[in-house]
């Protein structure tokens, strides 16, 4: 029986061993890109909400401070989503017959919660705490972006570990004075590096080794 492959096929075989490295690398890269893509993390994707609540109107348009609604953000680990009563503070009189707000009024009448859809959701094995960040000079904007321009809320980060670590390795680049914590569109006055270094010292920010050690976030 004659040979199926000519002798020159050996070269192709050798080439394909070499090529496999690239194929594997490509598969690895594609997997990583998919893992970080907003298809997987759902970053930059607005969620359908029971009421089309718009931060753009309430924060951008009316100038409300985040803490008017997210009252617990400075004092506890989580930022509360406001109870129906907070909406009714104003909507008892404003747009009080609008059908768009009927779910709010229904919730106020019956005492049933409004089933808001979560936008950010860390895995349960990660420990996150708002109050430490907010009271040490990390503004809402640094993590949540320009909320005042969002007609429906979306996340601006992957919420993956490298995102946390990227900042924990060098928080000086984003620290801001306490009075601008909830400000949107903040611009540092003067040099951010210098300001950051001063705030690092003033706020007693711990060493990078502490902030990047596993037990800080996985406790």
């Amino acid at each position, binding site marked *: 029986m004659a040979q199926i492959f000519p002798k020159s096929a050996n070269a192709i075989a050798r080439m394909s061993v070499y090529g496999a490295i690239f194929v594997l690398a490509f598969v690895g890269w594609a997997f990583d890109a998919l893992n970080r893509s907003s298809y997987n993390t759902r970053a930059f994707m607005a969620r359908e909400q029971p009421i089309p609540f718009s931060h753009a109107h309430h924060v951008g348009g*009316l*100038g409300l401070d985040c803490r008017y609604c997210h*009252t617990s953000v400075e004092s506890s680990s989580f930022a509360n989503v406001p109870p129906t*009563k*907070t909406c009714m503070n*104003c909507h008892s*009189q404003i747009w009080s017959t609008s059908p768009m707000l009927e779910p709010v009024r229904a919730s106020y009448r019956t005492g*049933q*919660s409004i*089933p808001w859809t979560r936008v950010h959701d860390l895995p349960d094995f990660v420990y996150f705490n708002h109050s430490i960040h907010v009271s040490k000079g990390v503004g809402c904007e640094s993590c949540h972006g320009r909320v005042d321009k969002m007609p429906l809320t979306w996340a601006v980060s992957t919420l993956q570990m490298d995102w946390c670590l990227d900042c924990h390795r060098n928080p000086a680049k984003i620290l801001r004075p306490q009075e601008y914590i909830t400000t949107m569109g903040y611009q540092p006055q003067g040099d951010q590096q210098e300001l950051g270094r001063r705030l690092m010292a003033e706020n007693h920010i711990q060493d990078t080794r502490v902030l990047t050690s596993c037990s800080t976030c996985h406790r």
Partner: protein
Amino acid sequence: MRTNFLAGMLLLTAAATVACRQDMHDQPKYIPLRGTEFFADGRSARPLIEGTVARGHLDDDASYYTARGSDGKFVAEFPFPVTKPVIERGQERFNIYCAPCHDSLGSGNGRIVRRGFRHPPTYHIDRLRQAPAGYLYDVISKGFGAMPDYAAQIEPRDRWAIVSYIRALQLSQNTSIMDVPADAMSVLDQEGGQ
């Protein structure tokens, strides 16, 4: 040949099973804001049973928490000394919770009012200047007429801080040039003309 095949199958199986189970991502525990199917109303945070007193919240100091003295009248004095940090805290809280309607000077022309909310009175009228501090505290805690109450959003200590800042606003809007101390007057004279 056979080992290659086995190794290949193993790799495939590993690749197929990775990141499929999310048990540790969504652990069966209640974290804030997570709902439940156990209770009919779907809330994992349960309402307090009537009469529950949380630790540190006995709130038995009536003049502090209700702003009324033992005679049932509003107290005129602050329950703690009003210092600069207290007024500054009050200013910050005022701008968050009150300025949307009362505006940052307290004249009652906030943005929500301009969008159709009932117009509140300005703070700079005699009736409110003479009202005891306890009365202002009570308006924050219980609301007043068309104004909603802020008991759930503002801690008692911050309510007092806001009252101290309203007092500062009232003073600042009700002074005449004669109230300026003599030594500061000369500074004003020099710089005022520019």
